Structure formats: C-alpha cells, structure tokens
C-alpha cells in the first residue's frame, strides 16, 4: 500500500503522531488550553492501535500513571501547559531519581498564576533548571515548527531512553496551535524492553525501582552519577541552528516561535546593511554553549540580543555561555503577546547602535 505521508497538522497533533510513530504505548493526560489537542489526538488515535489512553483525574494523576507504565517497561507520555506542568513537577523529580525515561509535551502559556492561554515561554526555568526538588535536569527540546513537533517528539523518546531520564518537548501556544504541512517519518519496528523494568527476574530476584536512599553515601553516589550523566549530555547532545552568524556583529538568540520571527528579522536587518545573525537553540537542556563560544573565538560579534516571550529566562544561560565576555541585552514580550518582526528589528537596531555603531 502506498501512502501519502505529508499531512496538514496542528503542532499539538504532530507531537502525538510523532509519539505513535516512535512506538509510544500509553498516554495519560488532563486537558488544558493551549495543549488540549494533544489529549484530543491521543484520545482519538491511541485506542485505534489498542494502546492506552486515560484522561487522568489530575496532572498529578497523569504523571504518576506515566511512572507506573514506564516502570512496567512501556513507552509513555503526557502533555500539558504551564500550570499543569507545575503540578507534575513532583513526579518529574521522581522520574529523574528513578532514572526512567518519559516524554512530556509542554505547550506553554502565559503566567504566573492562572495567567492566560496566550503563548509565553516562561516555563523555561521550571523545565530547564529542574523544576521540582533535588539536583536534576530534564532534556528540553524546543521545536519551532509543526514538522519539528513531530520530529522532536520522536527524538525526545530516543534521548530519554538513551540517557534514562525525562525529556520535555517545549512548544508554545503558537507552535502548538498552528497548522503546517508535515512530512511524517516511517513508524519504527518495536523492540523496546528495558532491562531495568520492575518485575524482571534477575538471579531469582524481581527488579524494584526506588528513589529512597537512607544511607547518605548512597544518595550522594546517585547524585554524582546523575551529574556525570548531565555533563556527558552537555558534551554530546547540544543542538542549535546557526543562521548567518559567521560575520554577524549582532546575534539574536531565540527559540520556539521567537526564533522564526528572529530569522525574518535577521533577513530584514541584513537587507538594511546590518550584519545580524541568529543562534536558535533546538534544545535548551543541554544549552548550546558551543554555538555561543564560537562567537567569542571568531571575534566578530559585538553584542547578543536574547529574544524571549518571558521576563528573560534563557538570557541567564546565554550570559553563562558567553562567560560575560560579550554584552547580552534582552528584548521580550509577555502576557501572550508575540513580538512582531518590526519591533524585533527596531530593538535590534537600537542595540546595534549602542554597541556596534
């Protein structure tokens, strides 16, 4: 049978298509705007393949159902938005401690508090810096198109399983809600059967999974192992798109929907004779420090502008990556407002005038 694998999908739908193509068996979720189509699509498609969909009683219920399914040796996922993710953080901390893979779609919205349903990127801290208790990280992939919503969800499963840790696909309200055409990848043959799953009998003893270590040295050892894993991920898995950065004097750092606007702005600025460039993190943990270090070694860049739909969260990682050797300025919108190309250009020109000429 010949199939057409190019479909018009919403970002939220594409994430679920990606999950099914990656061999995800279980979806547990709770509806929330602007992520609801993630649950809608899963509710429609998972049962058709006799896979599990449950509308959980709460975000807390959902993430714990994920824990149960993953511990049983199955691929499982959940999806939510800002405040729902806040509720899941307890479970994510446990997943990090269990060293178990799981994929969480976060279609971010405005905060703090109930905020609104407009797009924001203010979940950066809670996703990238841990979010729950304890010293842990999650992988955070930041798609900027519907195609990447699908592709990055597949990649999120791959990385989560490779490193045995939770992975977020961090979209925003725009990427989740918009439709674009997507070239869907082929489904994978299913071979998943993790050796660590609970109940696997090894030497007559059934495997168990825990996150409690009463001996201080044992817990310290777990923490040291986790940190070594995170350093290895920072070494091996950085992922960013660099656009016209080789000779750029002003470099915009932006991810998600902001990065698309920034790319348009870079072309516009170039047309006006300003040497602009873009670093677009495709993952924000690990943060693409190599791309920023390259700016330092090549010596052309005079200033970096962090473009964000938050009060300035990624900018801290940009500054750390540049080790304070280049000035970093923030241009941001909040509350559900998406920066326009015109206002990004205007801000860039203001900053360019101050730091370049």
């Amino acid at each position, binding site marked *: 049978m010949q199939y057409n694998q190019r479909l018009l999908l919403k970002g939220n739908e594409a994430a679920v298509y990606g999950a099914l193509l990656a061999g995800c068996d279980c979806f547990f979720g709770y509806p929330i705007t602007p992520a609801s189509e993630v649950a809608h699509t899963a509710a429609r498609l998972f049962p058709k393949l006799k896979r599990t969909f449950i509308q959980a009683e709460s975000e807390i219920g959902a993430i714990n159902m994920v824990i149960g399914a993953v511990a049983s040796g199955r691929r*499982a996922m959940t999806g939510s938005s800002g405040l729902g993710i806040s509720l899941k953080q307890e479970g994510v901390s446990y997943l990090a401690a269990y060293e178990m893979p799981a994929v969480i779609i976060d279609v971010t919205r405005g905060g703090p508090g109930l905020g609104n349903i407009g797009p924001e990127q203010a979940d950066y801290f809670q996703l990238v810096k841990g979010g729950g208790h304890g010293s842990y990280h999650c992988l955070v992939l930041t798609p900027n198109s519907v195609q990447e919503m699908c592709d990055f969800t597949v990649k999120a499963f791959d990385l989560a399983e490779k490193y045995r840790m939770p992975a977020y696909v961090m979209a925003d309200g725009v990427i989740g809600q918009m439709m674009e055409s997507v070239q869907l990848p082929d489904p994978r043959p299913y071979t998943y059967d993790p050796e660590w799953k609970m109940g*696997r009998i090894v030497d007559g003893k059934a495997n168990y999974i825990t996150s409690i270590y009463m001996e201080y040295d044992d817990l310290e050892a777990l923490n040291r192992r986790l940190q070594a894993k995170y350093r290895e991920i920072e070494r091996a898995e950085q992922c960013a798109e660099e656009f016209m950065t080789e000779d750029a004097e002003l470099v915009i750092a932006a991810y998600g929907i902001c990065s698309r606007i920034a790319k348009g702005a870079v072309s516009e600025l170039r047309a006006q004779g300003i040497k602009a460039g873009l670093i677009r993190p495709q993952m924000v943990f690990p943060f693409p420090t190599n791309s920023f270090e390259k700016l330092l070694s090549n010596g052309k860049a005079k200033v970096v502008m962090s473009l964000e739909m938050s009060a300035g969260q990624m900018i801290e990682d940009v500054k750390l990556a540049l080790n304070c050797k280049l000035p970093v300025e923030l241009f941001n919108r909040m509350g559900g407002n998406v920066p326009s190309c015109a206002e990004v250009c205007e801000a860039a020109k203001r900053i360019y005038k101050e730091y370049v000429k």
Partner: protein
Amino acid sequence: MSTEKVKFGRSKVFFDPFERRPGPIKTNMHYCPGCGHGILHKLIAEAIEYYGIQENTVFIAPVGCAVFAYYYFNCGSISVPHGRAPAVGTGASRATPEKYVISYQGDGDLAAIGFNEFIQAANRGERMSVFFVNNSNYGMTGGQMAPTTLPNQVTMTSPYGRNVETDGYPVKVCELVNALEAPVYIERVALTGTANIIKARKAVFKAIENLRDRKGFSLVEALSPCPVNLKMTAEQVNEFIDTKMTKYFPLGMLRDRSAETPAGKVPEAPVRDPEDVKQLLFTAKEGSGEGPATVNNSEIFNEERRIRVSGFGGQGILSLGHTLADMARLRHFNVSWMPSYGPEQRGGSASCAVILSRKAIPSPLVDSCDLLIAMTRAALDKFGYQLKDDGILIYDTSAMEKPAVKPGQKVFGLDALAIANRIGNAKCANSAVLGALAAILGKFALTPEDAADYRKVFTEAITESFRKKPQVVEQNIAAFNAGCDEMSSQLV
C-alpha cells in the same frame, strides 16, 4: 523415624535474607515491635503464594512506614510519590494488563495527600487490590494526626486532642468507597486478636483471589496496631482498636460482588506492526491528488500571501481557513494556519490566519493581510485595519451593507448563507466563499491553468476532509460552484 514439615513459616514470597535492607539485620523487617504492617505483609505474602501469582505481581509501595516493602516482597516493586500509589498502579495495570497490581497504603498516603488518586482509581474500577493500613496516626513521621485519628485522640499535632470542630471527623474510607459503583469488594478488618486476624486473612485472600481473576477493584482496610507511636503495649493497642477504633470504624464486609463479577480477560496487546500504524496515521496516496505535476505557477504567489478569515463561531470560519491551507499544501506551497483559540472558539468571534508562500514562513501570525474574509460586521470592525492598501475584501452581504474601502482595495459581497441554504446545508457557506474567491482570483490573478486547477484542488481538499461523508463532499462542491457562478456574474 519422624520427619518434620513446616506448617506455618516464612513465606517463599519473602526474600530470605532481606539483602536489600541496609545495615546488619537481614532477617527482620524494619518495623517497630508489634507493628501491624508485618502481620499484614505476612497475610498478603501467604495469599500471593497460595494463588500462585508471585511472578506477575507488582507491589506499589507508598510513602510511610511501608516505603521499604521492596526489601521484603520478591515481586516487581516500586516506591512511589506520597499518595500516588493508585495512579502509579493504574499506569502499571493498564500498560501491562498481564500483571497483578497491589497498592499498599497508609492513612496519610491514602486518606489525606493521595485521596484523589485513590478514590478516582476506585471509581474507574482499576484492576488492582488496595490494602489500606489505618493505625489512627502518622507512624513514619513520629505520631502526628491522621485523617483517621479519633475525636479527642492526642497526637503530636493534636496535643489537646483532635478537635472535630476544627479538624473535622475521621475519614471513613470504606464507607466512601461503598458509595461508588465500580468497586467489587470492600471490607474492613482489624489486626488484633486471633479471631480478627483470621477474618483479616480471609479478606486478604479474597482480595488477592479477585486480583488473580482480574475482577476489578478490591479494598481491604486494616485497623492496625501502632504500639510505639500510641505509647501502648501489645495488649493495650489491641484493646484500643477493638473498643475505640471499631466504634468509629465498624468492622465487616461492606460489599462483595466477586461472585457476580465475571473473571476479566487480558486485553489485546497494543498494535505495533508498522503497516497498521501507517494505515491509521497516513492517508492513502490514491485520490489525494498530490503529485509533482500539480504545481501552482501564478505570479501572484511569488510573494508570501496572508489571509485573514473572520466571523463568529459556528460559521465554519476555522474550517474555511483549513480548506484554503490544505489546498495550498496540495499544491506544494509552504503554508501555515493559525486559529484564535480558547474560550473565543466556543461562541462569539472566531478567526484564523492562513499564510502561503514559496519560501519559508517566518511567523504564522498575521497583522496585515492580502485577503480579508469577513462574515460579520464585528469581524470587519476588528480586522479591517489589517487589510493592505491593495488587498481584497470578501464580505457576507446578509451581515452588512457594502463597506467603504480604500481606493486601491477591492471589495466583493456574497450572500453565502443563502447559497448554502439553497443547497440544503448551512454549514457549506464557507465553500460558497471559496467558490467566490475562485472567481475573483481567476479574473484578476491566476494563470488560466491555475484558474482551471483551483476547482480541482478544492475538490481534492474537501474530499480528503470528508473522506467518509460523500454527501457532504457533494454539498460543498455544489456550494462552491454556486458561489463561483454568482461571483462570476457580478464580475462580468
């Protein structure tokens, strides 16, 4: 010559020794002397052994004194977040239906911090057995007030006794669960004198038998001795349970529907064959109309084109935009479709933005448009400013007078709803608008080949959208044709 055989002894379901327990003592459990957990652990182990389900049993350990249950039970085990055992158990039970899930919880875990997870799992009738240890206080943290602490009972956090006026009454878990339809078996027992322990053993065996037979949700609540935190001897704590606790928490079986509940079957395994996955997620090539030959070449689309579709919820505004976007996809444009989302879509105004381009589309958001379709006056008032100086406006004549526009702008009116009503399906009004657009673009913008192709690509898109409703496809095509004809006659 006489031989001995063990009549009552250490269950084979327990590890021997308890290697996972840190410290030098590997023969005993970590519980305090006289604690009910050990008594209940032994009954559960005996039942698991009796029903032969050890290999496939999953034991969900709570937060509380029983957090280390995996030191003891040689079963698949996990120690989970506080109160979340039934949710984790749900995930395990659904993901691996061949497993037998036990959720073991104390009164803080089950009746306080995790009550929602518990009661919802009970309400869904999850295939699991829950053992609920009610000892009237928080043991692991040092004897604080629990939801099950009796009125006037002194604990570390109710030093003057539980005051029902401020702390409420103890939570009667079995009675609450008994208000739900799904649970199969509910019994409250006491781990006190031998007669009560024999009854408890029977209840535990019933819950494990139900588990083996996949009969849904069973709950056994055990009133359990906690002599150390209650500062009592073994005999005193038994008396406390038998005389004081049982007064508030009466013993007995509240429900047993095991006999009339048929044994459950293991559900079918997930479908993972790549061919089946393809069949569900991809569309069949046949009839999709997508091929390398059909590419739009009209000059008008050498530039990125932005379209705003606006009206009110129920007019098919979002699907009009969707059809346009799908037509663009079928002709190999880069395309984006962005809705207004949230409460707006459920009544009141609705709008979406469609962009098509031969290059990458930077942002799907539209603040200026080449084409504005306004189906209500309010929509025109809201979005009229976005129309470019040389843009095209299409409006619904039943909704407004012909609006004034700037000199370079073109404006066209259509009574789309009247056309749709004539066809017999008011939901087709959006296709009439697309028909009108075909006439307008055909006259002013498209090459003759592309103008001829417009109807074809519309048909392909609408056929794909309503694959399973041929009648709806026909109605939409009729509305499209009528809209096209009416606009063409205006343009003559």
